[in-house]
């Protein structure tokens, strides 16, 4: 069966050059970088090179500002808890946006249980942070502002330079989660005014098992994993050498291919949304229109009157890999908090699908996706009581209201006896 991978946000295949670069570090160059003999010193050199490659991707001054972790989640935990604990005596207030990644949201929740407070700055209906709210949220007790560069869910690009300027004025360090942007959009730690930046090579054709945290030397950070003195004492534990080496090569390739990759996926993104919009009625794009405010890899849509997991399963059955923010796909049975934060109606959040493009997707993939997806939507609508009730005027559309019937949410509340969340 033909396979179309549209979930590059979760994983990307290794570049052959990355795989080749990693290979010797599993076998002959197996040493531990902390060892003092030549086996250790050899891999220490390899780590240094990888650090330089990572630094180059985000235009950091020195490889000494690069720490390796196990993945993006660990980087976020280290950035938030590490800065919070280091500055405990200065203040116990944090500022984040309402649409951060769960690794940020949940790290902050953890700290809140220990006496820290946090202000969650709202976003507009496209998912762009409200700068005036951010400005107002920072207090003399604020020790860290954490705002992502690109939203992992809806692809919105934040006005991160303005955020950086506000933080600089208030002299509060800024942590920028670049997990959804590094390798696809230019990241420049100095232009961003970022004290900390995190990203992961598995988002741009590197391996899983390595995360990168940049930390400007001026930002205070304590370790949250204790043990040996690896990573400048900021992260104990033996480094995942093959993954780090592979990640470094992936970063080096990303530097040279960034523009051509971005241009390629931007064309596919525009074609995909145009195709979906013209073939399927009652469909909505969540987040900004393709263009300067949206990462070129991401399409996040809500198709009305049907649920997302069913769409995902049928797409998978046809060979398409996608993601969804519907409550039915989450273990907590809650819709994606990002869709909630942009004020998306529950009915639309339920019908959510996220497609993320990669460099190997083609125009044919996109056309085939549109065609298959349109068929699946028709099939699922045929099975949905909501579609039938919409056609009979019992409930109304949220996307294109006809003025007939009650809202889906009202209807759902009526039949379940409880309001939809």
């Amino acid at each position, binding site marked *: *069966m033909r*396979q179309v991978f549209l979930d590059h946000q979760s994983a990307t295949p290794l570049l052959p050059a990355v795989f080749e670069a990693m290979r010797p570090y599993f076998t002959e160059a197996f040493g531990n970088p902390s060892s003092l003999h030549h086996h250790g010193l050899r891999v220490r050199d390899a780590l240094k090179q990888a650090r330089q490659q990572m630094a180059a991707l985000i235009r950091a001054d020195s490889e000494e500002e690069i720490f390796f972790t196990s993945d993006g989640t660990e980087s976020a935990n280290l950035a938030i808890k590490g800065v919070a604990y280091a500055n405990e005596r200065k203040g116990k207030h944090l500022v984040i946006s309402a649409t951060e990644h769960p690794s940020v949201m949940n790290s902050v929740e953890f700290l809140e249980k220990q006496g820290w407070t946090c202000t969650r700055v709202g976003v507009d209906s496209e998912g762009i942070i409200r700068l005036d709210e951010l400005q107002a949220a920072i207090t003399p007790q604020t020790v860290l502002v954490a705002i992502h560069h690109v939203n992992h869910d809806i692809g919105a690009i934040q006005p991160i330079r303005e955020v950086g300027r506000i933080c600089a004025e208030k002299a509060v360090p800024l942590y920028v989660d670049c997990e959804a942007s590094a390798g696809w959009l230019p990241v420049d730690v100095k232009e961003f005014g970022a004290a900390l930046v995190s990203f992961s090579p598995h988002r741009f054709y590197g391996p899983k098992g390595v995360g990168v945290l940049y930390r400007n030397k001026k930002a205070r950070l304590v370790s949250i994993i204790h043990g040996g003195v690896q990573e400048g004492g900021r992260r104990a534990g033996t480094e995942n050498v093959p993954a780090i080496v592979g990640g470094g090569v992936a970063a080096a390739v990303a530097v040279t291919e960034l523009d051509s990759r971005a241009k390629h996926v931007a064309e596919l993104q525009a074609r995909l949304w145009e195709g979906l919009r013209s073939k399927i009625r009652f469909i909505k794009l969540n987040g900004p229109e393709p263009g300067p405010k949206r990462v070129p890899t991401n399409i996040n849509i809500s198709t009305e*009157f*049907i*649920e997302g*997991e*069913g769409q995902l*399963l*049928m797409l*998978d*059955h*046809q*060979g398409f890999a996608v993601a969804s923010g*519907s*409550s*039915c*796909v989450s*273990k907590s*049975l809650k819709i994606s908090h990002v869709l909630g934060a942009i004020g998306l109606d*529950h*009915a639309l959040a*339920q019908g959510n699908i996220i497609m993320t493009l990669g460099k190997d997707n083609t125009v044919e993939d996109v056309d085939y996706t549109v065609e298959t997806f349109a068929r699946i939507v028709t099939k699922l609508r*045929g*099975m*949905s*009581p*909501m579609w*039938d009730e919409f056609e009979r005027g019992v409930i109304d559309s949220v996307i294109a209201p006809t003025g007939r019937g009650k809202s889906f949410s009202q*209807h*759902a*509340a*009526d*039949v*379940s*006896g*409880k309001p*939809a*969340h």
Partner: protein
Amino acid sequence: MSDTYTLYNPTVMEHFMNPRNMGDLKDADGVGEVGAAACGDIMKISLKIKDGKIEDARFKTFGCGSAIASSSMATELIKGRTIDEALKFSNQEVVDALGGLPPVKIHCSVLAEEALKAALEDYVKKHPEAASQVGAVSAVAA
């Protein structure tokens, strides 16, 4: 390959991809529509009832794969049952017949049980004469 690794077991996938009894019944004797408070999904079951027996059943579902498979299986299972029997129907029967559901997806089968019972209630409301013939119905209608 996408049919080697699937989110649900082969029976559930089969009922999801090729649902039985999908649709509405013209001149249904009882219709029940319920929503899942947990995830916000909606299921509707229509019944044709004759001489105290379920002659035919159809469903429509706005919900996940497990919900669609559950409604497909539930409508299969209850056809031919008496109202009395159907009132004792439990979601566990659906789960067993489907060969199991992931723990977080059990509530979707409960939705099928609730939709069926709502349809029976609707039937009794519309056919008060049937209530006297059916022992347990009064408890439901109350």
